[in-house]
Structures are given as structure tokens and as C-alpha cells.
């Protein structure tokens, strides 16, 4: 690990000012950052510990949604009864990720900003445009079965690893931030992540020193919620594919549907195509398959991950079948 100066911050605005300096990083749970620092993939010279900042708590908003402090741990968020009753897919998604130990440390803000688990991002003997822009992408011709099939180009096919963020994307979460100059802004979660483009090393629209303060969930949309995850092991494994779905329906037809996928893109992938296909569709396997076909129509496999395209369609079908209680 490269040496760094450690600061435990007790004031939000000075934390942002310090973190805006070159080679500075916020640290909260540290479960991903410290791992990357050990490998010298992350090499901050200043580490700003934000754990003492007043960014905890889960409270109801005036619109009857929830405001989740950035430092709320994944465990606390998944166990919160307001979340379990009104946003069960968020609890399910968080509990589908990592282990009990990691969820006790991992925070809401940090989970959103965790880095990809693409093996070539971690393997410093291999080229990686995300780690070293311009060096190439070893995953393209490599063991890429965990990599993305949608929304990526040949310079980086890394997948975003979060489960929590997939549920939050289906819920239209908003990210509230504070910048180093004191400015605050609200970013829709779908606008948080940057497409890899020519700078896959820059993963979000956050500026240096900009701190996630909280995540706001609007009131839950009508309908039943589900998070379905497919992975190599029964527990403690990253998603091959996951689906967050919220579906309102009458006896025969879908009234309103929200669909987000995990494991298939550089960000949690909200599928407007699946949603519009489902709107008004009958509660049949045919409709669910049509939604899957629409969602994956622009997908492209890179060899080892070709299976994700049919797997994503089938996972969507299974999730929709279960959430609507149809066959």
C-alpha cells in the first residue's frame, strides 16, 4: 500500500475541501477502497475519513419517501422496517450482496461508488483502460464471463457490481451531494454513472471533493416489488444477472412496470424498452419474453459472457412471473 496522510474529518465542508485536492479520497466503510489500496490500484495521498460526519439516519421525507444518509450501513438499511415494508426489493437487493461482515461496514454512498470487479481491473500485470487509460482492455479477448453486454464499447466492458444500486435505479432514487465550493445538487441515480467512452477511469459525474450526503427514495410506485439475482454460488457472489422489477397489474394486464438489470452494464441498467413493452401487456409468458427481447435487443456478447443475453431475458421472465403470480 502506498503511504498516505489520514484525516478524520468532523466537518462536512472542510472534508470536501480537503478531498478536492489532488490524489485525495473519502473513506467510509473502506471495504472496496482498502482492498484496492493494498493492490495499489487506488493510491490516494490524502485519505479523508468521513465516518464522524453527521450523515447517518433514515427519515421520511415530506413526499412520504425516504432520505437515507450516505453513512447508513448496508446492514442497517436492509434491516430498517420502513424499507422492509415499503421498499422490500431494496432490502432483498442489499441482502443479496456481499456478506454479513461486509454489509456491516459498507455504506450507502460507498456502495454506489464501488469499483468494478472485472478481473483485469484487479490484475495489475494486464492492460486496463479503467486502471490505466490508453493501455487497452484485456477483458475483450480474455475471461470476460462476468463482464457487460449492454451500453459498453470496446475500450471497457466492465460491469457495475452493486445490487443495492439496481434496486435504487428501479425506485428512481435521487443522489444528494455537496461540492467542495459548498454547492449542493441532486442527481437522478440513472445520471450518476458515466458511460465508459474514452475515459472509463472516470465512472461518475461527481467532481473532485463532491460528497454524497444522502439518497432520496420517492414514495414507492404502486405494484409488487422483487429483486431476483442469478449467480455462481447460492450466497456471497456477484451477480451474473439480476433483475429489479416493480409491477402493478389488474386481473389480466400489466398497468405499470419498472425494470432494472444488474450485472450486464457499466451501471444499473434501467430498461425503458422492457417497461414500454410491458405497459398494457397481458400477464403471459409471451409478454414477459417480448419485454426481455426488447430489453436485450442492443446487447452484444464478448465470448465468455454471451450467455448473459439469454440469461437476462430468462431472469426477467422469472422475476415477472413471480412478481405477478402468473404462470
Amino acid at each position, binding site marked *: 500500500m502506498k503511504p498516505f496522510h489520514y484525516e*478524520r474529518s468532523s466537518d462536512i465542508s472542510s472534508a470536501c475541501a480537503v478531498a478536492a485536492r489532488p490524489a485525495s479520497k473519502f473513506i467510509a466503510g473502506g471495504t472496496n477502497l482498502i482492498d484496492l489500496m493494498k493492490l495499489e490500484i487506488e493510491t490516494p*495521498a490524502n*485519505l479523508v475519513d468521513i465516518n464522524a460526519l453527521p450523515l447517518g439516519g433514515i427519515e421520511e421525507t415530506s413526499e412520504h419517501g425516504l432520505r437515507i444518509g450516505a453513512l447508513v450501513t448496508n446492514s442497517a438499511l436492509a434491516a430498517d422496517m420502513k424499507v422492509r415494508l415499503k421498499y422490500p426489493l431494496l432490502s432483498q437487493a442489499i441482502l*443479496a450482496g456481499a456478506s454479513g*461482515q461486509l454489509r456491516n461496514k459498507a455504506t450507502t454512498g460507498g456502495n454506489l461508488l464501488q469499483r468494478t470487479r472485472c478481473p483485469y481491473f484487479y490484475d495489475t500485470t494486464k492492460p486496463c483502460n479503467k486502471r490505466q487509460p490508453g493501455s487497452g482492455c484485456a477483458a475483450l479477448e480474455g475471461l470476460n464471463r462476468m463482464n457487460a453486454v449492454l451500453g459498453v464499447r470496446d475500450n471497457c466492458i466492465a460491469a457495475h457490481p452493486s445490487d443495492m444500486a439496481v434496486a435504487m435505479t428501479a425506485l428512481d432514487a435521487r443522489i444528494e451531494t455537496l461540492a467542495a465550493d459548498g454547492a449542493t445538487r441532486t442527481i437522478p441515480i440513472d445520471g450518476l454513472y458515466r458511460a465508459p467512452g474514452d475515459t472509463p477511469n472516470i465512472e461518475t459525474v461527481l467532481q473532485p471533493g463532491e460528497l454524497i450526503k444522502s439518497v432520496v427514495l420517492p414514495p414507492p410506485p404502486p405494484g409488487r416489488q422483487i429483486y431476483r439475482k442469478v449467480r455462481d454460488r447460492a450466497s456471497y457472489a456477484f451477480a451474473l444477472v439480476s433483475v429489479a422489477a416493480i409491477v402493478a397489474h389488474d386481473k389480466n394486464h400489466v398497468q405499470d412496470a419498472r425494470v432494472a438489470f444488474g450485472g450486464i452494464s457499466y451501471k444499473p441498467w434501467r430498461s425503458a424498452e422492457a417497461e414500454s413493452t410491458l405497459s398494457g401487456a397481458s400477464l403471459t409468458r409471451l409478454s414477459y419474453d417480448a419485454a426481455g427481447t426488447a430489453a436485450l435487443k442492443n446487447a452484444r456478447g464478448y465470448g465468455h459472457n454471451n450467455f448473459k443475453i439469454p440469461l437476462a431475458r430468462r431472469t426477467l421472465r422469472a422475476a415477472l412471473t413471480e412478481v405477478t403470480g402468473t404462470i
Partner: protein
Amino acid sequence: MNKSSDRPLGVTRRRVLEVGTVASALSFVGDSRLVQADTLSAAEASLNLVTVGLQINGRGHTLTLDPRTTLLDALREHLGLTGTKKGCDQGQCGACTVIVNGQRINSCLTLAVMHAGDELSTIEGLANDDGLHPMQAAFVRRDALQCGYCTPGQICSAIAVLTEHKAGWPSYATADVASEPVLTDAEIRERMSGNICRCSAYPNIVAAIRDVVEGDRT
């Protein structure tokens, strides 16, 4: 459950706060220690030490550490508490599990300096004058190990699983997350999935935990 949590602090919270206040006063306005360049020089790095008060198994310790020191290395290499094991050192195996403020964490993925004022329990702190902790006794009785390397982490994790369950926390194995979960074997297995046993003693580990759960019920 966590017996050390009832004990008075050896290093007072005030002392820790005082240290913290001095540190933060130095930290920000016009602090010359803050790095302006992208890296620290070797000379800067060697002078870059921090003092941290740690509360471990009811005893206070003050350590002067390189801030890179993980909590795991502080325990093993600086305090001689080698009961906590280093397996993968990247949060995948759970051998380094310790209990911090009543919650289990991977001590390999956190910095010691981040735990000033926290109450830590390690495997060394579980037994008391009356004998083994019930979870330790259950592991012995059920032969819930082979080589034993993962066992301290398994036991710390299992104790925290019971705390989490008593607090009503759901798991991925809980069919309805809004319900009160019941600690079935499937629930125990899911909740313990962050602790790997290379000898695959899982059936007996689950049995040992189940024994303690059932003992708590009676």
C-alpha cells in the same frame, strides 16, 4: 452476548476525543502536513505516524502506527493477539472476523486508525472465569472444525449472527423481508456465508450454532 461491552473503558472516551480534537485541529486550516503532490516521499512516509487508542476485550491500548496498518495487522503484529487469523487479506474468507461495537466486520478491510474509541472483541476476549463462551463450547462439543484456522472468525461471526437475529435483521434466506426471521439451518448457512471453511466443517458449524440458538430459547 458480548461480555466485554459491559466493562468500563480502560482508555476513557474523553481521552480519545482529546486526541481526536488535536488531530482534527491540525488537519485542516493551513495544515502543512496535507499532501499537495500526488504522493508522499519516503521521508514523509516514515514520519507519517498516528497515535490511536484501541479498546480491545475491555482493555485500553495506545498504539503509534503507520496509518496503513489494518486493524488485523494491529491486532496480530502490534498487540500479539494472534487468535484473529489472516486468511485471504481481502475480505473474502472471514478468518479475520472480529466484533466491533457489537457488529462483526472483516478486520483486514479496515484501518486500525479508523477505530479510535470503538469497542472491539476478539476470540481472546470471549471466555471468562466461568469458562468458554457458549459458542466456543458448542464448537468444541460439535467438533465444528478440522484444521481450526477459520474457527476464531467462525465463532466471532456466529456470535454476531445471534445478535443480528435478536435485533430482527432479515437475511437473503428470509422469504418475506418484513417478517420476523426464524433461524432455520438455511438462515444460519446464509448468514454465515462470509466465513469460508476450507476443511468444509460446515455441517458441524451449523449444528453448533443451532445448539446455541436452541439453548437460548430454553
